[in-house]
């Protein structure tokens, strides 16, 4: 057989420097909580959770070309699952809550996908929005969802294989921080590996031209449904982490603007790379914090910065320092 490098795909860093950059970023996040006050560590935890949501969405948006406005609903649903299965004042271990949250979110995504993936483009956007809002109204102002104000839950215990991480109250945030980091890294590496399989190539083919993939003999509906379900389950992991981090659920986290915010992070970080959403989530969280210090009009600052990034950096933050100007989507119009 011929020797051909098959080990990179469009969405993964193509240069050694890029890969080193990601490792350095991961290392920096690893040591950060020991260097800064707990407030900032918790802020980064929130950013990492947002990054997980955006990353799960990138499997749809960047990898498959599916822009969904219902993705956030699976995230919020998973957080509510943690609330609903946790008995009052009893903390369940995460080795129970995490799989259950992911399973429920994945199952919901599978059902929504069964219907919504029959449509494309604008209609897909609207159908996913409709399904997302249906899930929202299950929890909005209902007894099940703890009313409009939401509800407190007992945070799951960080526990696996019979061992429980029992930290003093003041250091609890460190446990949450590292659980989020481990999940984020695992999700990134898992998706990176997935994209290098034939399945990942098929997603790329669907993104570029679904008709062509069908003409080659791929059941593109099935492939998209698998991707949609998986992305939903991964959003569930992010939602579970939110519940673990905040110990609180409210209907807002199920709403459509969760999806919009994740899309914004993807846009900010870069559509054309898997690490883009992570950069975007960190940047948007940081930006929000800075904007809050400067002005009361936080969203105005955010909006202007995002506008500037989209105009000046069409490939997002992930495209910074990359010489290759082609975004690899060349034959979209071909």
């Amino acid at each position, binding site marked *: 057989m*011929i020797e*051909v490098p098959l080990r990179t795909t469009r969405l993964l860093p193509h240069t050694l420097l890029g890969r080193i950059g990601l490792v350095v970023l991961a290392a920096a996040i690893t040591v950060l909580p020991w260097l800064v006050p707990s407030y900032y560590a918790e802020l980064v935890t929130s950013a990492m959770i947002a990054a997980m949501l955006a990353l799960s969405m990138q499997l749809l948006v960047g990898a498959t070309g599916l822009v969904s406005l219902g993705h956030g609903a699976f995230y919020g649903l998973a957080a509510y699952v943690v609330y609903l299965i946790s008995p009052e004042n009893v903390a369940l271990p995460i080795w129970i809550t995490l799989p259950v949250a992911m399973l429920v979110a994945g199952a919901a995504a599978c059902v929504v996908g069964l219907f919504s993936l029959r449509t494309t483009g604008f209609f897909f956007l609207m159908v996913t929005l409709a399904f997302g809002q249906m899930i929202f109204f299950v929890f909005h102002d209902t007894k099940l969802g703890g009313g409009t104000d939401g509800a407190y839950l007992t945070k799951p215990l960080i526990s696996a294989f019979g061992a429980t991480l029992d930290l003093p109250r003041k250091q609890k945030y460190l446990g949450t921080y590292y659980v989020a980091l481990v999940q984020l890294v695992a999700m990134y590496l898992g998706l990176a590996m997935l994209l290098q399989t034939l399945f990942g190539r098929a997603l*790329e083919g669907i993104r570029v031209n679904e008709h062509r993939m*069908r003409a*080659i*003999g791929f059941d593109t509906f099935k492939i998209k449904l698998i991707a949609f379900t998986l992305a939903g389950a991964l959003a569930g992991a992010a939602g579970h982490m939110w519940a673990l981090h905040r110990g609180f659920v409210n209907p807002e986290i199920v709403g459509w603007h969760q999806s919009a915010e994740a899309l914004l992070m993807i846009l900010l970080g870069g559509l054309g790379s898997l690490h883009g959403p992570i950069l975007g989530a960190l940047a948007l969280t940081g930006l929000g914090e800075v904007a809050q210090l400067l002005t009361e009009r936080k969203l105005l600052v955010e909006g202007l910065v995002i506008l500037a990034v989209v105009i000046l950096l069409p490939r997002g933050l992930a495209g910074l320092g990359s010489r290759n100007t082609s975004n690899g989507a060349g034959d979209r119009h071909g």
Partner: protein
Amino acid sequence: MNAPLISAENLHTYYGESHILRGVSLALTPGETVGLMGRNGMGKSTLIRTMLGLVKSRSGRVSVDGTDVTNAQPFRIARRGIAYVPEGRGIFASLRTIENLTLAERPGVDGSRQWTVERVLDLFPRIRERASNMGHQLSGGEQQMLAIGRALLTNPRVLILDEATEGLAPLIRDEIWRTIRLVRDAGIATLVVDKTVSEVTAVADRVVVLVKGEMVFDGNPQALLADQALMQRTLGV
């Protein structure tokens, strides 16, 4: 006569209000090479796309091995051993050359693996040289070879080529025609859409001509070549 591998019967296809195919029937028997000719806009591509399920027909029937596949999902038709090399080639620009090939590789309907990536690369040495290039870095001719290679990797029984030589340099055209002959000699039934009368009539067992969505000629190439008036009227040559 052999039972047809793929056949279209009395197809009527519309684009909106436009009646494109007006009762076209076409069948390919195993190993047969058919040339499909006609001027631009006469419905050649629409006929192919309808047979492949990419365009829905309003009436008529498409069958593979006698099984009705009218308006079936395109991937189901493709999996019955019908491979398609689309006009404009349809290479995945953001995948490597080799990935474009491995993506499509699968055993044929009878489980045969006659065509492997290695064999396709043997057939097209130029593609082998460019195996790790991205799809959009290939020349038009190389893309065409890649598209044919990709179709062969599905180990098809029928290969449908839509304008495979259009816009290519003469030397590359020759290479594509050589390949088409090789595919024919390998026993794959082939439907060739092309405007080069001399080449189509040389390679095909049978030629059909479409004019405004209707079949005006179906016969052997010699009969077409002998009828200068018909050629002038229907093909403009």
